């Protein structure tokens, strides 16, 4: 497939807009439809598309497995971290009110961070699943 110029060019053109759209969905999630789950899948689709067109090797060069695993964990840690910070600030777990100067600001910051964590994890899980299935023979075949 990597010999086909149309696909290659189209992928190169589309790659950045897909990620951009993902980020839009991610950060617009505060006010409208959207959020971490959807954005994560969209962002992941960009990397998956790249790997499909240019081959798994190239895809792994672009987005190595260990970074994938690290970001996957980081997303979860970010989510939990927000909760822990709110606990340290003397409120319940994941209570955003205490994060900012006012309750509203706190909610903003909280939602943003948590959704970002979700987005990171979802996109990386998607990519990890893709790698695992495509790469089945060479690795052990264990999904995460």
């Amino acid at each position: 497939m990597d010999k086909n110029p149309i696909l290659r060019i189209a992928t190169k053109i589309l790659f950045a807009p897909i990620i951009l759209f993902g980020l839009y969905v991610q950060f617009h999630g505060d006010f409208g439809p959207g959020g971490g789950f959807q954005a994560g899948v969209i962002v992941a689709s960009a990397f998956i598309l790249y790997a499909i067109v240019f081959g798994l090797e190239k895809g792994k060069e672009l987005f190595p497995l260990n970074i994938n695993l690290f970001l996957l964990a980081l997303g979860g840690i970010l989510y939990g971290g927000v909760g822990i910070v709110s606990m340290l600030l003397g409120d319940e777990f994941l209570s955003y009110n205490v994060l900012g100067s006012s309750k509203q600001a706190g909610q903003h910051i909280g939602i943003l961070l948590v959704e970002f964590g979700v987005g990171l994890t979802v996109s990386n899980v998607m990519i990890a699943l893709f790698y695992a299935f495509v790469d089945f023979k060479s690795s052990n075949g264990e999904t995460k």
Partner: protein
Amino acid sequence: MISSTLGVWNYWIVFFLMMIGLFLVIGRKNLLKKIVGLTIFQTSVFLLYITFGKIQGGTPPILNNINETVYSNPLPHVLILTAIVVGVATTALGLSLVLRINSEYGSIEEEDISAEDLIDYHDLIETSKKISVKFKK
């Protein structure tokens, strides 16, 4: 009577899908088809929840400035978002298991697999018989 039975057509669809899914899981001997069935089964549950959340004439639950707007219940949607994620995880894990099984057994038909396992089990019993004969001597 008819209207009250057919009027709840969305529930009919839900339970129709549910039965299809369950039947596939139970009835099919192919491990992959079982997973397909499982997914259909889970999807029917998603629909069930969404049905609960829908209010006739309701709009998406996004705040607008028109008074007396009827909103649909957003909670089931949120729940189902979670349930979808769970479903994806289940499917992914199931598929990866099927892949592994295929590479180990060379088949994803339940009969082939249980036949091979049965041979293994008989081996176990045979060896145990041999060993117990040894004891008696």
